[in-house]
Structures are given as C-alpha cells and as structure tokens.
C-alpha cells in the first residue's frame, strides 16, 4: 500500500471521472431538472459505446462515430419519453423497459457481448494509454476536459433559451407550465432525448478509453450518475449557484467519486463490494435532505 501506487492511479481516476461526468450531466438533466429518475441510462451508455466502436471498426471517422452515438442515445431517450408521455407508463418503469429492450439492441449492434477495439489499429480520441507522458493535445484528461467544458457551455446556452427555460419550469411546476401554455409532455421527452444523447456520448468515449464496448458496461450507471450529482451538490452546492457552475460541480462530483473509488481499491477492499458501497453512499446522500427536513427543521426552538 505505497502512496506512489495510489498517486499513479490518480490520472486514470480523473480521466474516468471526466468521462463518466458527461453521463452524470445527462443524469442531472433528468433527475434534477425534470425531476425524473431515468433508468434508460444503464442501457443507453452501452448503446453509445457500441455504435461508436462499430462505426470506427467499419472505417468511419471519429466525428461521424461520435455524432451517431449521440443520435442513437437520443433515440433511446425518445423511446422512454414516448413510453412515459404517450403511453402513460410511469417514468421509472418506462426507463426500465427501454433499458431491457436496449440489452438486445446493444447485442445486435455489436454482434456479441464484448467488442474490443485496439488502440494500435484505430486512431482513438481517448485511451487509458494516453493519460500520462503524451503531448497535451493527445492527453485523454485534457480532451475530455475540453469536451466537458464545451458541453457545459452548450447546455448553459440551451437552458437559458425560451425553450430551455420552459424545460426547467416543466420539472419545477407542471401546473404552472400548462397554465402558461407550455407543453410539459413534449418538454419531458425533449429532456430525456437530450440527456440520453449525452449519456451515449459518454459511453462512446468510455468504450474508446477502456478499449472495448461491453453489453454490461452501463450496469449501475444511474447510480454512478446520481452519486456524482449528489456529491457535487453536497460539496459545491453552497458556493456554485450559477447553472454552468452547477453542471461543473456534477463533473467534479464524478471525478471525486472515481478518486474515492481509487482509494478504496488501493486500500485493497474487496472490489466485489464496490457497487454495494456506491449504492449505500448514494442512498445516504439522497436521504440527507429528507432527514434534514424531518429531524432538524421540525425542532421547535425557544422557551425554557
């Protein structure tokens, strides 16, 4: 348990954190803005990875591969959105149904459960080989950081527009929105589409980073996304009020999650327990606001 081995693991943790951070920003859109827990992400993450890997292997360039991964992700969000709004299925169940369906679709896209892509044979944008000792512009941390900043800038713009504002309002007060002529169902679908596009984009980067797309790669993604959101909020919520900074805090939350994970691995904790640990941490963080209102705010002060 030398401290150098821990430090050696840090760049990887930061890179992974940034890549998953993009997914977590997608989760933020549904969970925090729309007030929907969208379980589609467990499937759409892999969809993005699968589409990207297959396109690269078929000889397409990086840009079309990423764009197609993004669009494929948007379609998965569309599926969930329509199940929810046009068919009246609860949002959670709609996400589970899409996620289940995607398992088959992802297998069909890849043709098998695991599709490796070798960084020696393909010119990949990010890779776990490119986190140390490479020029800055090839460095995965740098590239994913730029990605994150550009995405945050885009989302900051979008949620400031008339349409984006109405989307924020839809998650906040649906009654008010309908009274103000806002189509809440449409906005929910739009939010799910956008969110899953981002998740798939994250999956496309993740598949390149780890060198393969795997049908299991999105398992528990929603929990990681929620963890990033709640960690970011807990640590930076008080100081980051601006919307762009809030999105940044999600990315930072994701990085911190992976750093903690690195520490846990370094402490030689049984890796099989990692998911359990994540679930417990997220559960506690989600419970904090509830506990606060229930056990602290309710205390009557004053008097003797």
């Amino acid at each position: 348990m030398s401290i150098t081995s821990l430090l050696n693991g840090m760049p990887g943790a930061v890179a992974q954190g940034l890549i998953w951070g993009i997914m977590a920003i997608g989760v933020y859109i549904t969970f925090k803005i729309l007030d929907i827990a969208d379980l589609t992400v467990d499937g759409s993450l892999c969809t993005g990875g699968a589409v990207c890997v297959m396109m690269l292997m078929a000889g397409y360039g990086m840009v079309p591969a990423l764009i197609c991964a993004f669009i494929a992700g948007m379609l998965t969000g569309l599926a969930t959105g329509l199940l929810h709004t046009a068919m009246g299925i609860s949002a959670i169940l709609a996400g589970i149904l899409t996620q289940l369906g995607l398992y088959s679709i992802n297998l069909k896209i890849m043709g098998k459960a695991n599709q490796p892509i070798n960084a020696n044979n393909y010119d990949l944008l990010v890779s776990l080989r490119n986190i140390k000792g490479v020029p800055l512009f090839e460095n995965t941390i740098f590239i994913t950081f730029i990605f994150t900043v550009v995405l945050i800038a885009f989302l900051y713009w979008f949620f400031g527009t008339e349409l984006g504002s109405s989307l924020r309002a839809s998650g906040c007060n649906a009654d008010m929105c309908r009274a103000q002529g806002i189509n809440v169902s449409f906005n929910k679908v739009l939010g799910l589409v956008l969110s899953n596009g981002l998740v798939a984009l994250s999956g496309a980067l993740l598949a390149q980073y780890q060198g393969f797309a795997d049908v299991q790669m999105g398992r528990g993604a929603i929990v990681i996304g929620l963890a990033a959101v709640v960690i970011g909020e807990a640590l930076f919520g008080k100081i980051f009020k601006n919307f762009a900074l809030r999105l940044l805090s999600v990315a930072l939350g994701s990085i911190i999650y992976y750093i903690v994970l690195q520490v846990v691995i370094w402490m030689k904790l049984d890796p099989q327990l990692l998911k359990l640990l994540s679930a417990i941490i997220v559960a506690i963080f989600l419970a904090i606001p509830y506990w606060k209102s229930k056990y602290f705010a309710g205390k009557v002060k004053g008097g003797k």
Partner: protein
Amino acid sequence: MLEIKDIHKTFNKGTVNQKIALNGLSLHLKAGDFVTVIGGNGAGKSTMLNAIAGVWKPDSGRIIIDGDDVTNMPEHKRAKYLGRVFQDPMRGTAADMEIAENLALAARRGKMRTLKWGIKKAERELYREKLLALDLGLENRLSSKVGLLSGGQRQALTLLMASLEMPKVLLLDEHTAALDPKTAAKVLELTDRIVNENKLTTLMITHNMHDAIAHGNRLIMLSDGQVMLDIAGEEKKNLTVETLLSKFYQASGEDFADDSVLLSK
C-alpha cells in the same frame, strides 16, 4: 367573450364514487364582464374553471372563447386565451426559478418557445416597473428565487404573470383564500386594479360573500353544477348580503338553518 354551453361532467362514472360535478351548466360572459362566483363546497365552481381551462374534457357541451371553439383543445394550447391564478400560491409559479424568469415564461404564453434567449434585457426593465406598481418591494429582487417569497407575494406575482400577455379571460379560483385577511385584501385590491386597467373579462371564485358583492359587475351562484342565481347591473350594485341570502333561499326553496353552512358570510 366566453360562452359555456350546456356542460356536463361526471367524475368516476359508474363507480360508487360517481359525482355529477357539472349538470348542464351554461354561462355567457360579455367582453369586460367581471363575474364573481359563489356557491357551497362541491357546488362545481372549480370544476367549471377547470373545464374552461381544459384540465380535462367535459362529457358533453361546448366551450367557446372569443369565437373559437376550444372544447377539444388541450390545456397548454388553450392557455393562450387564459390567465389563471390558483388557490394554492405554490401552484402558479415555479419556485426554483427567478422572479424575472417566471415573468418571462408568462410573457411568452401562447407563443412558440424558440431558441432565442429566454429573457431580454429590455424585459427586465419592464418587469421592474410592473413589480414597482405592485408595491410589494419586489422590484429589486428580480433575480431572487420565487420560492423565497411569501404566499401573498406569490399570488400577486401570479396575477401579474396572468396579465402580462393579455388574456381573453382571467380565471381566479379562490386566489385569496390561502392568505391572511390583510394580504388577501391587498391582493384583491390588486386584482381590481389589473382587471379594470386592462378591462379583462374575469371569473373570480370566492367563498366570501362580501367580496363577491363588492367586486365585479355581475355575481353568479352555483349549486349542484348549475347556475342558480345570476345577478347583474343595478341589481348587483345594490346587492347586500341580506338580499343575496334571501334570493338564495327563494331560489333553492330550502330552509335557512340547513343551508347556513353553504355560505360563509
């Protein structure tokens, strides 16, 4: 301006909880009419407003606003004709958004929401002036979250939102009922001002008979999903609580003692 023709609405049809909420309700409002609506609990007042707003479709009948038949129009499309203030101050505004953002959302009621910036610079100035006129000290809090406001402030803001983009009909469902008497009086005064300044066609539900008499140019009383009393013009002007009560008992043919619960003075 507003025409309600023979509306029927039954909730939970065919179950033990079946409830006829509107039973052939008809009502015609001329442009500029300010109608106060009274009636006992469950008389169908809110149901009438919800039918106009399109919260759900009536079983039968037609609703026509400004010449357009809106009976089959979904709620969010119908919103372009309507300004609405709810009883619950929480319902009319988005708590997590700024005052200015709420106003900007309302200013675009009935318009396509585009990818243009959600709130222009000039708008802020306009909102500041409008808030100044409310005299609630909100003019310097444009960037405050609405969730920080009091119930009365939120209702006043909702009223302002309802009238930013001029509605054909303003629907107020006991919008002062959740407020303390002083705040309620202030919001009512504001209501009068906004309605009169803009000559808004208005339906205002209230449980307070004095308010129903003191405001508007016409008063209707609902009972069992129908209009039971309809008082306008000079008669409305000279109305007192006593004459209103006696009219009510005449019309219903019921006993004083039984019905005192129907109306709170």
